[in-house]
């Protein structure tokens, strides 16, 4: 469904010097597939997501979505940011429907769908609350519902649980898997947590910095539905070790 071929991105820094953020990145995400991108900070994983979202143009190579080249934001993709990024003046229900209202895609049953979606995310009864009245985890749930209500073919998530505490984070991971299982959509999930990537994804793309490039793609062969019990399995450990080896092995090599 998404196809990246030789994608590179170069920024011009404040001093006018060119900074290469991504070099020759190529991979695919199949329809309904869950792909995680892992890497140390500064490896260009967020940049990559922005390219796929159409928020920034690639400097070289092509990004295709369903056969069409991505040149700007598209209705088939929805994005979840690290911060919940809710509108402080709108209640939960209006926050969730905001993108559809902005795009003029409100249907008669949109609000009912939004209420149902909020209920499955454990937010029934919070429709009329303002964002500041919610906890961080609840705010991020609202942000995820806002993305899901757009019924995207591809959900882009940029460290969506990065700002949450460890316990909320684990809870949200499983919840995300539940919501994803009920839909046919691809997910591209950026994280810097290796266990999180292995737990969630069908495949893990491992990236390395300066300039950002792919060092490995690790298939995770664990049955679904996933649970934290699987963390003890050999397959889980094998995947985690392989990813860790790439990330820390390179660091050690550079330090030596």
């Amino acid at each position, binding site marked *: 469904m998404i196809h990246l071929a030789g994608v590179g991105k170069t920024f011009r820094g404040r001093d006018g010097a060119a900074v290469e953020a991504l070099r020759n990145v190529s991979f695919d995400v199949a329809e309904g597939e869950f792909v995680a991108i892992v890497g140390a900070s500064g490896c260009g994983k967020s940049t990559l997501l922005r390219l796929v979202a159409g928020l920034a143009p690639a400097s070289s190579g092509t990004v295709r979505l369903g056969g069409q080249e991505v040149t700007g934001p598209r209705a088939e993709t929805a994005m979840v940011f690290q911060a919940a*990024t809710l509108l402080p003046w709108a209640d939960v229900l209006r926050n969730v429907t905001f993108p559809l209202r902005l795009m003029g895609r409100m249907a008669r049953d949109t609000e009912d769908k939004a209420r149902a979606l909020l209920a499955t995310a454990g937010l029934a009864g919070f429709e009329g609350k303002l964002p500041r009245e919610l906890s961080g985890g609840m705010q991020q749930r609202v942000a995820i519902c806002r993305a899901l209500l757009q019924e995207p073919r591809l959900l882009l998530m940029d460290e969506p649980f990065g700002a949450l505490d460890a316990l909320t984070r684990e809870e949200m991971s499983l919840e995300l898997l539940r919501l994803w299982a009920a839909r046919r959509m691809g997910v591209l999930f950026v994280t810097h947590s290796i266990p999180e990537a292995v737990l969630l994804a069908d495949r893990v793309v491992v990236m390395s910095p300066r300039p950002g490039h792919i060092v490995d793609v690790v298939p995770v062969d664990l049955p679904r539905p996933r649970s934290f019990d699987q963390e003890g399995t050999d397959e889980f450990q094998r995947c985690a070790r392989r990813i860790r080896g790439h990330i820390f092995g390179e660091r050690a090599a550079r330090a030596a």
Partner: protein
Amino acid sequence: MNRVRAALPAWIAVTGLFVVWEAVVRGFGIREFLLPAPSVIFTATISAWPNVLSHTLATLVTVLLGFAASVAISLPLAMLIASSRAISAAIYPLLVVTQSIPKVALAPILIVALGANELPRVIVTFLVAFFPLVVSSVAGLLATPPELIELGRACRAGRVQELLRIRLPFAVPFVFGGLKVAAALSVVGAVVAEFVGADAGLGYLIQTSMAFFRTPLAYGAVVILALMGILIFQAVSLIERIVFPWSSGSEHSAPPAA
């Protein structure tokens, strides 16, 4: 009930101030044209009431027209400045120039140019009041978190949609901060204009009273001006609480930087 209790210390402080004032004036026998006692101010104001009322209304008209002009001009101006770096670079220095000119100096010139009517007074009021409103509105429009702008872009919002549906609502707490300052400054502006050229208004009343050493009446006018400023300020706060309930709370915990 809670709000009454919250306002209690302020009332006690104000009442205490007047009590001490009254006691000091009586105790030391301070003469009336130097510092009148609150009771004397009160009776002097009441005995001249119809006259005082007409002056109060004259000032109120100037204040409200000047304040309305500030709002009507500042908000579009702020949007213009926030929408483009080039426009901002062109307009901002001009605004700073208008602020560096002492308005007291400008008032007589305007009155000669525009005639001794309401217009120059409204313009002086506007000039005193509009600047903080522009500055805080621009700050609000530009303080929108980049993620929120990005969200708008991801939803394919155009620049106008971005301004009206994301930046402008986000700026509301900032705009109201500016409105409160502008409300208080409008009263200052109106009185400055009345000092220079008017045949009515509380500023005019203060000047004519002092010319005849009717100090209590001048003090009465000052008290009414203070009350007017407080009332307009409170009216703005009330509108904020009713129309934008999410805004009044976020003023204390300023919008997060990230």
